[in-house]
């Protein structure tokens, strides 16, 4: 894609994605991690950083991180180390965050993204490390005071750091979606962006094409939707180019995206940045993972999105992009496969199922703002409809009306077809009779057609369809009409 505004400039983006791990308890304490509880009801003495308390690592968080590492072809470190990142903030109870610094648990992985134009690109994953989340500061409704809610403090996060391999906001979004898909496949993160379970910081810089050195980067903090990440990056790229083309220079800084104003603005400069004084946390032993542990985790890996997409393309004859769309979530892929199996009909059925799942079915979900699990037409019911298309009981066009009726009141396709008399007319006698009536009623058009106005063929198809309420089998109608209209 060429973007006029970026002509001559190369955009360089790296993402830091924070995925909240779906463990039941926190990373260093036994408190629950459920979202939405009353403030501080899920914070025990460890989460509150009381004097004398100590962290104990949640083994499930380690397994989840290892799962991500294996799924991205990364090295799961035989030995990783927790470090303290020291800074003061009211919602950081200990005055330090336990994170991993020099020795992360996952290193050197990659993911392949597929763009809409069919290009594939491999994005490097520098590292993924475990860390604890901080709490939240609350300011609303508190006059001249701030509230602290430490329910989130100690929630396990996997911070996934990409290489600066992304060259546009679109690539960044494709990568972010890919990670989003993957963590949900692995069942290590619920991916809920509104609740902050999946969030992203973007490092953005620009340079002249061909320049060897990277430009000065700015970090855009905590953008919590795909759309905002795209907008924030685009704004930031345009801003940087404008500054540079105006003869200015970029200051390395952290910037905040304001969705309401659609702009990024400075949060703190490099000079103001904290010296975090990282050092190994003496309260925690190094995490030592042996080959048996890694093998056991590997055995729990599900079929991964790329594998599934390749299989869909191969077995169901789907285009790569369609296979990608259908495998974007495990639920959708499972739904699609259930439709395919129940429909039957080989490759034709599979292709038909793909079109319907991506088309009307997804469209209705979107229209009604429903999750897949709440769909008003189940996989078996949808397959029942597709079978009626395949066996020519109804046409594809009629099928759309049947589907709408099914979605509205939960009836099966056959019941709708019967009740509304939508069964396709395949009796050639009946079709011929309808053709004869139309020909008789339109002598002028008939004469014109016979004198060479071929375009009028469509007029006759339309008239017959109208006469049969669209139920005439289109192929049969074509064939019979040609015969009858012939001089």
């Amino acid at each position, binding site marked *: 894609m060429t973007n006029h505004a970026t002509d001559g400039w190369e955009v360089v983006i790296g993402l830091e994605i924070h995925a909240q791990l779906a463990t039941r308890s926190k990373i260093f304490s036994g408190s629950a991690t459920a979202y939405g509880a009353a403030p501080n009801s899920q914070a025990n003495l460890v989460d509150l950083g009381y004097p004398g308390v100590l962290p104990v690592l949640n083994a499930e968080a380690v397994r989840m991180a290892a799962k991500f590492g294996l799924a991205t072809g990364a090295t799961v470190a035989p030995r990783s180390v927790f470090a303290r990142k020291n800074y003061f903030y009211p919602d950081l109870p200990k005055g330090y965050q336990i994170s991993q610094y020099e020795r992360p648990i996952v290193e050197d992985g990659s993911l392949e993204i597929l763009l809409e134009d069919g290009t594939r690109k491999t994005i490097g994953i520098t590292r993924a490390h475990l860390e604890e989340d901080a709490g939240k500061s609350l300011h609303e409704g508190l006059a001249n005071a701030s509230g602290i809610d430490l329910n989130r403090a100690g929630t396990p996060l996997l911070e996934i750091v990409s290489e600066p391999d992304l060259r546009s906001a679109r690539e960044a979004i494709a990568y972010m979606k890919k990670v989003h898909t993957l963590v949900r496949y692995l069942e290590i993160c619920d991916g809920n962006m509104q609740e902050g379970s999946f969030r992203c910081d973007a490092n953005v810089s620009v340079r002249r094409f061909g320049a060897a050195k990277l430009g000065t980067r700015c970090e855009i903090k905590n953008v919590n939707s795909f759309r905002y990440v795209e907008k924030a990056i685009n704004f930031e790229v345009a801003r940087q180019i404008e500054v540079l083309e105006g003869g200015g220079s970029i200051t390395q800084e952290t910037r905040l995206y304001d969705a309401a104003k659609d702009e990024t603005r400075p949060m703190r400069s490099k000079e103001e940045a904290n010296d975090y004084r990282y050092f190994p946390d003496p*309260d925690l032993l190094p995490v030592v993972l042996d080959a048996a542990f890694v093998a056991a985790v590997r055995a729990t890996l599900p079929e991964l999105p790329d594998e599934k997409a390749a299989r869909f393309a191969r077995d169901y004859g789907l285009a790569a992009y369609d296979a990608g769309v259908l495998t974007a979530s495990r639920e959708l892929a499972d739904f699609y496969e259930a439709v395919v199996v129940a429909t039957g009909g080989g490759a034709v059925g599979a292709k038909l199922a793909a079109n319907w799942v991506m088309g009307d079915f997804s469209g209705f979900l979107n229209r009604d703002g429903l999750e897949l699990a709440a769909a008003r037409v189940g996989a078996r019911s949808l397959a029942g409809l597709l079978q009626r298309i395949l066996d020519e009981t109804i046409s594809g066009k009629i099928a759309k009306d049947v589907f709408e009726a099914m979605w509205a009141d939960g009836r099966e396709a056959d019941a709708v077809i019967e009740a509304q008399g939508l069964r396709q007319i395949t009796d050639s006698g009946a079709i011929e009779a309808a053709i004869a009536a139309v020909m008789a009623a339109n002598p002028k058009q008939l004469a014109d057609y016979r004198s060479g106005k071929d375009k009028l063929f469509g007029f006759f198809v339309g008239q017959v369809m109208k006469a049969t309420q669209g139920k005439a089998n289109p192929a049969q109608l074509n064939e019979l009409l040609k015969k009858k209209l012939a001089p």
Partner: protein
Amino acid sequence: MSLHARSVAELAAGLAAREFSAVELAQHFLGRISASNGALNAFLTPTPERALADAARADAARAAGQAGPLTGIPLAHKDIFCTDGIRTTCGSRMLENFVSPYDATVVERLQAAGTVLLGKTNMDEFAMGSSNETSYFGVVRNPWDLSKVPGGSSGGSAAAVAARLVPVATGTDTGGSIRQPAALVGISGIKPTYGRVSRYGMIAFASSLDQAGIMAPSAADCALLLGTMAGFDPRDSTSVDAPVPDYVAELKAPLKGVRVGIVKEFFGAGLEAGTGARVEAAAAELKALGASTVEISCPSLPMSVPTYYVVAPAECSSNLSRFDGVRFGHRCREPRDLMDLYCRSRGEGFGAEVKRRIMTGTYVLSAGYYDAYYLKAQKVRSLITAEFRKAFQSVDILLGPTSPTPAFGIGAKVDDPITMYLNDIYTIGANLAGLPAISIPCGFVGELPVGLQLIGPHFGESRLLAAAHAYQSATDFHRRLPAAYA
């Protein structure tokens, strides 16, 4: 013999024989606290009501035939251990009014064993000090000479046991904080192997060095308590899941054939002559009792003080960040903004020595200095550990003085941190290497006690205690009490 002159083992025997009840015993010691704590300042928070309730429970347990070896034994906890419902100050204004909502594992285990809590003892602020002069609540006095310090940081526990205001007390040792005060007041104090006793609920100073231990009249008494305190705790990731030996049963192990290494570096310049002579005499005594002695060298040991004063402040600078005036502890009045809240709460809540170490630690961890200080110190630490490991290939126990001098005057070193820090020159090595070590009385210089230090290999507590016990079976230094408290 009066009750307080007895060892813990003798008190346990008396309780078992129903010679006296736990309540009577508690009352006896509570009376001594009332009479003498004013002068000594060893207890910050006596807990008489709790003590009598614990004691009544202990007597009931005994009547029901459910008494264990420690049922009814009075004890005190250094005020660094969190005690549920009881003020836990850590010797600091920061926690002057902090009532812990939970018990430390050590507290929990000793409580479950039926001990009777007499109170919480004074200490250097956040365990940072070697004289107990950094306590926000005032200096503790040495029962042998009230003008002298009791050592630190477990100075309150040390003075309380030495004056027999309590028969036994817990302590913690980060760089010598059990052994050095034990030496300066003439009692026995053991710092176990790092990981032997849970740190959960012990307010952290330097997490990789801190270890809880026991301060008692004799090594045998240390053995009696240590077995209950020690053992794996799932709440402390650095506690070690290794079986706890029967330290009391293993006290009988003979000294014959035990190889004692006399550490050359412990007898250099700076060691006061009388102290050196007493320690050498103790080595000779051990030899006479059947041990063999050999001189041994750990050449990197002289670097232990500078190494410690990088590692310990680094860790403390981070550990003490949680005292920010937000959730607990001291908060300044009417903060203008967040920065003011932090600066004044911490500025007012911490004393000078704590601030000095936080600043030192912050500096050595900061960008550009980390490699030169923290990383280098960790390398020296590895070197010291390796030298100890090598030494233990040829000997079973290392021997030296605990402290370079007997107790010094209150105020004598308070303005000279470097001289103060050198008090721990012989004790710090064991912390850096995580080794168990014990200090036991081995004589006097004038009226002041001298401590003998024995260091063992990792998890070698049994042999240390047995050797100390053999020495104490042949000597009576540990039975002597300061005249005013006899």
